[in-house]
């Protein structure tokens, strides 16, 4: 951080963000919440401004998307206020969707929430900013804090103010958004070539699980979503920070040029692997447990909807995709051939390693003791309801089994030669090629997806910004701007200039009245006296 420009301003904004986030969580009233919510927009803008490279466009994009959705949200709150006459949180009775306007208001407020969470289609600011801001910022803002706040408001909105379990269409909307977010963003992540960008898409993809979980309306899934959010904070921070450590040592985030750092940075490697496995939902780590709860919730919705299995498939498939892109990450950063430039790379600095390691240990701990610790002490008390059954999974038992398996695997591995990349000389046309050139880099893992016609097109569209509403918005806005610049703006400018000139002229005139002649001044006093006497006495 120390080399970042405007470091002091950065911390100012961080403090402001934290303050506003506390304000959001502590306010007991939608209006106050909105106030702090808007402060967050500005502090986010400020934080994103402090980038690695020129980051203003990304920041502008973020503030536009979030800002616009905030205005939508504000409108929603106004509608809510008008319809119910109450904006305080602990409503005595929950609001039912009895009125179309209430549904509209719910969806409008949802817009703000989704933009914060980064769910499709309001997610585009996150990968955009991933290009330009440091890893720690990413880990802090879109990675954890915004998820937290978005999820908080989503929960408040869906179960404390409204009750979405009483109205299936809203539930469906949430679930569809969740499922679509999971799948599309995981695919996008799969095809990235930049670690930070990949992780950013991954973040968005994970948000889909939360939305999906909340959308089911089943207690266990909601608890799962909450747990997933907590887990997401842990492992996504670990991933971002270890990616940051790598960047700190190698000065690059491009996966093509990375590789083979596992030996050089063993602790980071370890933490990264743990976190990656956790996010992919490999038992017994925490990600698995929360996803498991969400799956269970989806299964339980089978009474309400006929298409529950689609969501289940989406969720599971998303999980597989997650594993896939994480393998790609692990391979491209830590395994494989090491470029020569990185032979002198050392383990990251102590103070960078420790938090990452702690977070990784957190992944393990929250996974193994999921029922005993986080669920019991954090999740369930905060939700305030009992879970019927905690599923068929006993993490502790499973862990023991898995450890046995792992030990067996290690023993096998130990005797093998897997520790080092196997080196064979590459012959092409009789010439021995340099290893460097023939190196297989991670990003090409899934390049075959690109060759599937439909998927490739989709991806191209995605990269080209076809799913990015911001672009459409900006197009419309710039059209309107052109109009307003030529017509409205000119009128206003002229008006402003004329008014300014008139005021200045009046000012000069009144200033001329102060002639410096005493008798004039005293005369004014008597003028005032005349007025007072006329009004009061006569």
């Amino acid at each position, binding site marked *: 951080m120390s080399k970042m420009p405007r470091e002091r301003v950065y911390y100012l904004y961080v403090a402001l963000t934290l303050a506003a986030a506390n304000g959001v969580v502590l306010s007991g009233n939608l209006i106050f919440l909105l106030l702090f919510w808007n402060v967050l927009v500005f502090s986010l803008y400020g934080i994103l401004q402090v980038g690695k490279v020129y980051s203003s466009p990304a920041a502008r994009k973020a503030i536009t998307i979030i800002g616009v959705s905030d205005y939508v949200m504000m409108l929603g709150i106004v509608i809510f206020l008008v319809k119910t006459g109450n904006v305080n949180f602990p409503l005595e009775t929950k609001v039912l969707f009895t009125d179309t306007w209430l549904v509209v208001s719910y969806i409008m407020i949802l817009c703000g929430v989704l933009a914060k969470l980064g769910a499709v289609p309001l997610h585009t600011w996150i990968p955009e900013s991933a290009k330009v801001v440091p890893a720690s910022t990413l880990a802090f803002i879109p990675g954890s804090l915004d998820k937290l706040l978005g999820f908080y408001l989503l929960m408040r909105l869906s179960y404390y103010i409204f009750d979405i379990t009483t109205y299936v269409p809203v539930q469906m909307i949430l679930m569809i958004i969740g499922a679509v977010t999971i799948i599309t963003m995981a695919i996008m992540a799969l095809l990235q070539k930049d670690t930070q960008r990949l992780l950013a898409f991954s973040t968005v993809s994970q948000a889909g699980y939360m939305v999906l979980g909340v959308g089911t309306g089943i207690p266990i899934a909601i608890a799962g979503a909450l747990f997933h959010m907590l887990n997401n904070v842990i492992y996504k921070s670990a991933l971002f920070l270890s990616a940051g450590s790598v960047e700190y040592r190698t000065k690059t985030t491009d996966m093509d040029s990375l590789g083979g750092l596992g030996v050089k940075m063993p602790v980071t490697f370890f933490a990264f692997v743990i976190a990656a496995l956790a996010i992919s939902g490999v038992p017994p780590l925490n990600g698995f447990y929360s996803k498991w709860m969400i799956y269970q919730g989806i299964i339980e919705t089978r009474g309400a909807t006929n298409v529950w299995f689609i969501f289940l498939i989406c969720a599971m498939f998303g999980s597989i995709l997650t594993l896939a892109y994480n393998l790609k990450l692990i391979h491209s950063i830590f395994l494989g051939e090491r470029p020569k430039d990185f032979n002198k790379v050392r383990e990251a600095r102590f103070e960078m390693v420790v938090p990452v390691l702690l977070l990784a240990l957190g992944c393990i701990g929250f996974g193994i003791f999921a029922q005993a610790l986080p669920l019991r002490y954090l999740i369930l008390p905060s939700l305030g309801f009992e879970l019927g059954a905690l599923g068929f999974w006993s993490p502790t038992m499973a862990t023991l089994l898995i450890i046995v398996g792992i030990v067996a695997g290690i023993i096998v591995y130990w005797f093998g030669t897997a520790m080092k990349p196997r080196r064979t000389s590459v012959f092409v046309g009789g010439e021995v090629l340099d290893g460097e050139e023939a190196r297989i880099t991670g990003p090409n893992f899934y390049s075959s997806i690109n060759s599937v016609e439909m998927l490739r097109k989709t991806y191209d569209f995605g990269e080209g910004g076809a799913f990015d509403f911001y672009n459409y918005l900006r197009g419309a806005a710039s059209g309107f701007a052109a109009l307003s610049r030529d017509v409205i703006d000119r009128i206003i400018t002229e008006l402003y200039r004329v008014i300014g000139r008139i005021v200045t002229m009046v000012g000069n005139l009144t200033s001329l009245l102060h002639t*410096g002649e005493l*008798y004039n001044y005293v005369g004014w006093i008597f003028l005032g006296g005349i007025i007072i006497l006329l009004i009061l006495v006569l």
Partner: protein
Amino acid sequence: MIIFLSCIILFLIGLYAIVTKRNLLKIVIGFALVEYAINLLFALIGFRSGMLAPIITQVDAPHRFVDPIPQALVLTAIVIALGTTALMLTVVLRIYNRYKTFDIAEIRKLKG
């Protein structure tokens, strides 16, 4: 009432001097006149026909005095007037020293 009005007239004469006169000294004189007018009004207000000055000469005699309060107030007011007049004259003197004139119309470096 006519007696009271004469004080008001004196008051207005003082104000008239303050507004219309361009000579600094005349303005100060105007203030002195205004102060006299008010002091006089005070003294006249406290008067009771046929009563004596409020100074006790015999302990047991019936107390038939004019109102002592306005007199006390006028004493204070006179001193205050003296203080203001002295300060004002000092400023007038210094202004003459700086501007070499008593004409208020020429003493107008401050304007706008």
